[in-house]
């Protein structure tokens, strides 16, 4: 029985909680949130205990794994505390708010000899996992130009931590991290990056953000990533063109079931629709569970998650300076 505690009960925390409850041989031993009402609700729903801070939780119950689903700027502090307490750690993407924080997170986990599993969920998304495999198998031949697009409704609503770049890194880090990790995983390291970013405060206090990122991979592949916080719900697509062929996919065109009812609920979705079959988060948590129990390395290592943060940070720098940023040169300077 794997004893899991979920820290943070926002959108992602609740998703994780729901999926942990679906996995066998897992016991949810505690929840941590500053929101007392939410805590009370979810305690009774999942038959567990709630705490207002992680220290109290760790002092009161026996925990194997701490699952950190907190805003990006809190990852460093919470992972560090969990590592010092000797817990195995699952942490939402991105690994850290900055490259510097991310490196320290990795160092602290090494020092305390705990494993760190980063929720780069795209690797567990069947659409993207399959495309990765096809490319590795050589189906498209030598890759030429790769286009990725990812859009959601803006989570940067009034007073949200997403609206604060210091806390979230904005769209390039928060949303781009998915595609950057997938690109690194599939095509190898990035040579240089050029990014353009626009943002606008809308009347309702919401922030619209949009970015266009061009990456030149070390293997020569030209990649383009479109990131949008101007959609109504999650929309993703990719087009992978190579010497021998092209793979295309579009979330709008891969829904096997479409239900239309008279009264359409107006729910804004930030996350992927539940696929028919296991959701990417369920696959991810199942994988992490197996890695922890069997002491095997995960398919996404902390070092890889760090590289994705590195690319995002370089893209943010490029957008700010209007100049291309060479990843290797930048690494040498840091």
């Amino acid at each position, binding site marked *: 029985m794997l004893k899991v505690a979920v820290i943070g009960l926002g959108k992602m925390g609740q998703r994780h909680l729901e999926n942990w409850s679906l996995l066998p041989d897992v016991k949810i031993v505690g929840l941590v949130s500053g929101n007392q009402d939410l805590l009370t609700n979810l305690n009774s729903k999942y038959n567990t205990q709630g705490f207002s801070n992680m220290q109290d939780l760790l002092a009161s119950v026996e925990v194997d794994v701490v699952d950190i689903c907190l805003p990006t700027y809190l990852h460093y502090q919470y992972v560090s505390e969990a590592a010092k307490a000797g817990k195995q750690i699952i942490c939402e993407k991105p690994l850290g708010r900055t490259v510097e924080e991310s490196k320290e997170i990795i160092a602290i986990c090494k020092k305390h000899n705990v494993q760190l599993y980063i929720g780069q969920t795209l690797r567990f998304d069947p659409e993207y996992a399959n495309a990765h495999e096809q490319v590795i198998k050589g189906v498209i031949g*030598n*890759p*030429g*130009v790769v*286009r990725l*697009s990812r859009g959601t409704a803006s989570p940067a609503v009034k007073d949200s931590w997403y609206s604060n770049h210091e806390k979230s890194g904005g769209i390039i880090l928060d949303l781009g991290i998915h595609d950057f990790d997938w690109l690194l995983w599939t095509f190898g390291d990035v040579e*240089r990056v*050029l990014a*353009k*970013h*626009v943002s*606008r405060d*809308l009347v309702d206090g919401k922030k*619209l953000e*949009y970015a*266009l990122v*061009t990456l*030149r991979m070390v293997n*020569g*592949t*030209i990649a*383009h990533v*479109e990131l*949008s916080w*101007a*959609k109504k719900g999650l929309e993703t697509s990719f087009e992978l*063109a*190579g*010497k*021998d*062929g*092209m793979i295309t996919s579009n979330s709008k065109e891969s829904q096997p079931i479409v239900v239309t009812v008279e009264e359409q609920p107006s729910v804004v979705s930030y996350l992927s629709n539940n696929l028919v079959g296991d959701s990417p988060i369920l696959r991810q948590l199942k994988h992490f569970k197996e890695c922890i129990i069997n002491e095997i390395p995960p398919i996404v290592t902390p070092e890889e998650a760090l590289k994705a943060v590195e690319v995002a940070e370089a893209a943010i720098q490029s957008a700010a300076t*209007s*100049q*291309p940023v060479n990843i290797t040169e930048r690494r040498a300077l840091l």
Partner: protein
Amino acid sequence: MKIGIISFAHMHALSYAHFLSEHPEVELTAIWDEDVSRGTEMAGKFQAEFFSDLDSFLETDIHAVVICSENAKHKEHVFAAAYAKKHILCEKPIATEVIDAKAMIDVCKEEGVILQVAYPVRFSPVIQKVKDIIQSGEIGEVLAINGTNHGQMPGGWFIEKELSGGGSATDHIVHVMDLIRWILQEEVATVYAELDTRFYDIDVEDCGMVTLELESGTIVSIDPSWSRPKTFPTWGDVTLEIIGTKGSLSVDAFKQHSMLYDDVNKKVQQLSWSANMDQGLVYDFVNCIKKGANPSITGEDGLRTLEVVKGAYESAQKNQVVTLNRIEL
């Protein structure tokens, strides 16, 4: 009105010839081509007279010419036609060098002939609708555009640099660039481009990614790659994702098609059923000559888009962002 065609090197000539010959007020009377067998064949097909000598062709009573020679030859053909006082519809790109484009604009002005550049996508009803929507302010102020003009690798003289001036960047940046200038009525401030030859063993670039900042700060990507596989069900695409402060618009200019799964030819093909934009372009040119009006697509439109292409080559070569210095006209 009698019109002649200078060269069928660019395949668009076929479509222009078709719409010229079906225009009720136009006669396609003369064809000149460097390639005698191609020229003779086309003259037969369109019931026009074939000329192997350009001077004799220009001495006929044609009012205007459509130039579809190889890009690098546009300049000499525009000069010859302008000196012979023929109005000109010139295939894009206007020229292979900015300085040539300027000379072509100047000579046409001096000789008092119309110089129109063939950007037919402006005549796509879908794109015209997009222009109306954007200009009406329905999606607010435009903040960003993510555009593509993909194609299959055309081969032939398109991949011979001396004749084409360059590969996919020369061939495919200008269409989307022209639409953006036309719809937003503004110019490019900076250009960044990654260009490469990654799909074919050819001497020109076959792919790339161009990033622009317009003078207002609007950000733009244009993918001009010849990245459509040989099995792709059509020649390519023109798409724009336009992000505004009040909404967004996504357009696929050639979306109006049905699919043909063709067992005889073992191919899957898009069958377009949208209005043909080449017809709009040809009719507009004829109308413009009739009225003696300024062309709706000017030599400057051709030149400004070519400046962006040249900026892209410079940027890709230096791996730096290039600030465009627009030449004065």
